[in-house]
């Protein structure tokens, strides 16, 4: 649930990085954390197991400047990717305003990507949301491994597996090197803020209309 705080003149939105285990969700957040100056970001909070796997979530608050005199504050969350953490992922999705689906380009992870997208769809459904409605972008990560001779899925295959019907923007990335990280963030932020603003305006006009009827 986005929050518009007219007292502090801030808009708060929640963006969740979703995807299968070890696809690079936390790596995205780490890169953003290290690249953004302290003035524009808060503390990076991580809840992980000893083996550096996300146990609950990571959180990175960032400031994206102003729109119509309101400060845009975005909270970036990741979910634990491993399939047995489904209940935890659902909790993190509570109140989500935008989603980055990070897909693993490794050929052997093909099924995991598809499974994770289906899991996302089912979890959203429980909050009465759908992939078609919520702001969403894909990030096809680990594209740099092509030069290491590791079998990767082609962009066409990834698009066909995941984005055939949704047709949302996608970004090729190598999150560990920062390639595509900010392009992804920029696009999802833009879409999310637009979505939140539209919902706000819609609820205002609806309230006014209802007031008019009464």
């Amino acid at each position: 649930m986005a929050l518009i705080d007219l007292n502090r003149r801030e808009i708060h939105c929640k963006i969740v990085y979703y995807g299968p285990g070890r696809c690079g969700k936390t790596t995205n957040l780490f890169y953003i954390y290290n690249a953004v100056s302290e003035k524009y970001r808060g503390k990076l909070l991580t809840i992980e197991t000893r083996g550096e796997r996300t146990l609950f979530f990571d959180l990175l608050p960032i400031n994206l400047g102003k729109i119509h005199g309101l400060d845009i504050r975005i909270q970036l969350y990741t979910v634990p990717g491993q399939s047995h953490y489904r209940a935890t992922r659902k909790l993190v999705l509570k109140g989500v305003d935008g989603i980055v689906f990070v897909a693993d380009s490794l050929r052997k992870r093909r099924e995991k990507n598809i499974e994770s997208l289906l899991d996302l769809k089912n979890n959203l459904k429980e909050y009465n949301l759908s992939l078609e409605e919520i702001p969403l972008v894909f990030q096809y990560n680990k594209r740099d491994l092509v030069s290491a001779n590791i079998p990767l899925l082609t962009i066409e295959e990834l698009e066909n597996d995941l984005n055939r019907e949704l047709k949302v923007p996608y970004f090729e990335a190598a999150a560990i090197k920062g390639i595509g990280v900010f392009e992804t963030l920029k696009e999802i932020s833009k879409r999310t803020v637009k979505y939140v603003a539209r919902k706000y305006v819609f609820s205002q006009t609806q309230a006014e209309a209802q007031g008019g009827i009464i």
Partner: protein
Amino acid sequence: MGTMVVTTEKVKELQRVLDNQLLAIGVSLAILIDEAGNVIVAAGNENGVDTTSLAALAAANFGATAQIAKLLGEEDFSILYHKGKRDNIHFTKIGMEFILVTIFTDEIPLGLVRLRVNQVAQELLNLLTEND
């Protein structure tokens, strides 16, 4: 789940309730958050506490505990309490979407905090859900 808008007047009213009912009995910090982990209003001495992280963790903690309740066949655990050496923290659900986080030292009896929190819960909920 829509977008929640809080106006300056609303923040002042919420803050007044937290001040008069909770800070008045010696609570160090009271934070009203939503279930997504946003801080709606905070009152008291933040004293270097990272309220953004605290809100995210509190919401997640509450969510996780609610799932544990379901596993046990309970509908919800509406109150959570953690005791520390110096500070204690108390979480209460306010309606369906909000959580009141209260931090207090050992000098304040838990019973008094629980009583006051119960008393203000409905008042806060009314303020949060009424239309301007």
